[in-house]
């Protein structure tokens, strides 16, 4: 029996190898099918690192199948059966059956079998065969996989857009952190602002979609607003407590003239050695009583400026303190605004990419909705910029330039006869056409159909060869910009950003 088993060993080895090969091919087919399914799934859902999974599937499946095939035991009878199928004429099976028999016939049969097995060449008699169906299956899968690359994968575009967004946010986070290090260390708010900006940078790095980034920015701006409000509130309280209620009221009302007047009064009285010491000292007292470090610092600066006779600086310090403003806070706000702008742009780009591809799969829809809704996220703040920047003014309209609305196509007469212009207008901002008349007209319906309004346009302010002073056009631009963003139904954060931008220009 031992001799027989030993004689069957080469066949068993060959059988094991053949089985492993067949199973490896089946595993390869299974892996190819899994890869194809993954590829299909990658069209439906987000699948980061899908290429890695392809490799995992195509390598691990054959290895697993091959390993199992190699390790599974093979019975002596199976080996005998295989050997007999190669021309041994049931010798091996019969010999195994007679393993415990010792009759002369059984001995002769065993001898005959061993002779035949010794002359058996497994390599020649059992050439390796690859299961045809698995080869064809793998080829078909490979073909389908290759063909799938001819179709644009919407999920890849989504992930690409997401990656781009994340990269942009990381860049913004770096800029915010860098900006935070450059804040003026001398300012009291700097420490808090650095922490705030640090947290903001961390949140930006973590954000994977515009919604999260903008939410983090909203939180940061809320905190900054709170800091500003605290400083302002504390300043006014400190001033009132120090007996400078009038000054506090003037500052609160934004009446810089009155505030200047009050300080001037104080200076004159100081010159006459009657009350300036008291204004300056009152300011110092207020600085000491102020709990907010920024308010305290600015009140102290104002006191010092006043005592050294620098009225303008004193007034500026007091105005900043009353508004809760500081250089550090302004820098922090600018950083936040910059990051918000970048987030909004990146989000808009992402949404545009999705919309462009006409993606309507639910996951994609929610993604694009998230992109869109991020655009309409809440924004803190109010029109405080407008209020504080009182220099917005009324602006001018093209009426001043002789504009008259006309619907009958005839040009009005006048010293500044407007040029006749009949056209189809887009809704664009045109500072020469502000006011209730001569508003921007919109066409209705398709181009070439529906109503078309005609309007004549005045020459407007200035001329092509001249330049208009910055101060003169800024209020007008400010008002128009705020009006435009409100009319355009932009989200709160965008409106605030525009507001802050122009308000910072007025400072």
């Amino acid at each position, binding site marked *: 029996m031992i001799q027989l088993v030993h004689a069957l060993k080469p066949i068993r080895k060959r059988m094991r190898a053949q089985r492993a090969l067949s199973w490896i091919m089946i595993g390869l087919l299974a892996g190819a099918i899994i890869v194809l399914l993954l590829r299909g799934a990658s069209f439906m859902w987000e699948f980061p690192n899908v290429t890695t999974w392809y490799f995992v599937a195509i390598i691990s499946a054959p290895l697993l199948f091959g390993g199992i095939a190699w390790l599974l035991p093979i019975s002596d009878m199976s080996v005998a059966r295989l050997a007999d199928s190669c021309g041994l*004429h*049931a*010798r091996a099976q*019969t010999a195994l059956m007679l393993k415990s028999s010792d009759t*002369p*016939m059984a001995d*002769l*049969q065993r001898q005959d079998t061993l002779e035949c097995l010794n002359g058996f060449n497994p390599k020649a008699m059992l050439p390796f065969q690859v299961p045809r169906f698995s080869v064809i299956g793998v080829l078909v899968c490979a073909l389908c996989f290759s063909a799938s690359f001819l179709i644009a994968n919407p999920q890849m575009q989504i992930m690409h857009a997401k990656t781009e967004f994340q990269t942009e946010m990381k860049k913004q986070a770096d800029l915010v952190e860098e900006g935070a290090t450059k804040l003026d260390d001398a300012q009291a708010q700097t420490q808090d602002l650095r922490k705030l900006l640090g947290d903001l940078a961390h949140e930006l790095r973590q954000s994977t979609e515009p919604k999260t980034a903008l939410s983090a920015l909203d939180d940061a701006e809320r905190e900054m607003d709170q800091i500003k409000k605290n400083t302002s509130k504390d300043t006014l309280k400190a001033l009132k407590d120090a007996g400078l209620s009038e000054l506090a009221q003037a500052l609160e009302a934004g009446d810089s003239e009155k505030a200047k007047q009050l300080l001037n009064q104080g200076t004159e009285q100081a010159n006459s050695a009657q009350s300036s010491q008291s204004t300056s000292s009152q300011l110092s007292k207020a600085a000491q009583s102020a709990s907010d470090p920024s308010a305290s610092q600015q009140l102290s600066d104002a006191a010092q400026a006043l005592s050294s006779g620098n009225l303008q600086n004193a007034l500026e310090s007091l105005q900043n303190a009353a508004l809760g403003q500081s250089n550090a806070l302004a820098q922090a706000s600018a950083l936040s605004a910059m990051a918000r702008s970048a987030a909004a742009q990146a989000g808009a780009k992402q949404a545009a990419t999705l919309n462009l591809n006409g993606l309507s799969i639910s996951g994609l829809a929610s993604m694009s909705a998230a992109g869109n809704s991020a655009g309409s996220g809440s924004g803190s703040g109010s029109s405080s910029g407008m209020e504080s920047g009182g220099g917005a003014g009324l602006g001018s309209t093209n009426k001043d330039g002789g504009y008259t609305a006309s619907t009958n196509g005839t040009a009005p007469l006048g010293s500044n006869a407007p040029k006749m212009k009949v056209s189809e207008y887009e809704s664009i901002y045109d500072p020469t056409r502000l006011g209730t008349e001569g508003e921007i007209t919109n066409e209705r319906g398709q181009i070439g159909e529906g109503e078309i309004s005609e309007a004549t346009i005045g020459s407007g302010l200035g001329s092509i060869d001249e330049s208009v002073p910055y101060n003169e056009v800024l209020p007008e631009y400010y008002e128009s910009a705020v009006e435009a963003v409100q009319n355009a139904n932009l989200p709160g954060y965008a409106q605030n950003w525009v507001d802050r931008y122009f308000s910072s220009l007025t400072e």
Partner: protein
Amino acid sequence: MIPQEQIQSFTSQIDHIRNEIKKEIIGQERVVEQLLTALVAGGNVLLEGVPGLGKTRLVHSLSKVFDLPFSRIQFTPDLMPADITGTNIIVKTDQGNEFRFKEGPLFASIVLADEINRATPKTQSALLEAMQEHAITVAGETHQLGDPYFVLATQNPMEQEGTYPLPEAQLDRFMLKILVDFPSLSELSEIVGLTTTTQTVHAQKVADASTLMTLRGVAMDVPIADAVKNYALNVVLHTHPELEISSDRVKRSVRYGASPRAAQALICTSRVRALMQGRYNVAFEDIQAVAPACLRHRIALSFEGMAQGDTVESIIDDILSTIPRG
């Protein structure tokens, strides 16, 4: 236990016998081999072929080689059972007249029953009793027939008029049905050359009854693997149209299938064949080689099968090729 030497000498002995028969019989190697197979396996044979193919000569040569008593019975419609079994005849003795049993031609070791289908069923059954029981009963007295006992019946496939075809139950008692084909040109030339001159070469005795029994003992000791045995049994089962496992063709074309005797015949004859091939075990190929001869007289075609021109041979081939091995 049969000694190894006897086992190992089987093939050489069979070859010796075969070569001896070849001296008188030209060609018909397959027939000779099958005949020897049946003889060693202890079964009876039904030979079917046109007249003049040497069937009688073959059996005669066989009896010479084994030196066994041989008798030939020409069956005719008027043949009576007593004509072949023997009968009691009145014999005058010193004591007076008495009945003495006079043995008939069945009392031989090798019996050639020529054109068995021409005899009446009664006479046929008398022969078949001898085949089956190895004994003959006459007037209530049973006379044993010796071992070995080999009956070779012949049938003419033509001239079926006025014949009594053997019933299925009796056909089943023949181990093999061998078809004798017409010789080829070269064989015919040799036959003519041999038989139209003064024959100088005759088959000689090379074995005897005990040799034959020894050969039989060796053959019956040949092992058969379970897978091979199951294959043989499945072949028999697949001939039955009433069974689920049989093919649509069998269900359609076969009226009834082979009996368990067919399975016995398959196993016994395949053992002999394995030894003849120089192997000490039965192989699938042995079953496939002996199956047609074992089964062709045991399967009856249905009317539908006959109408469609189906043949038993093709059905057997179909069964052999469709059953999986092991």
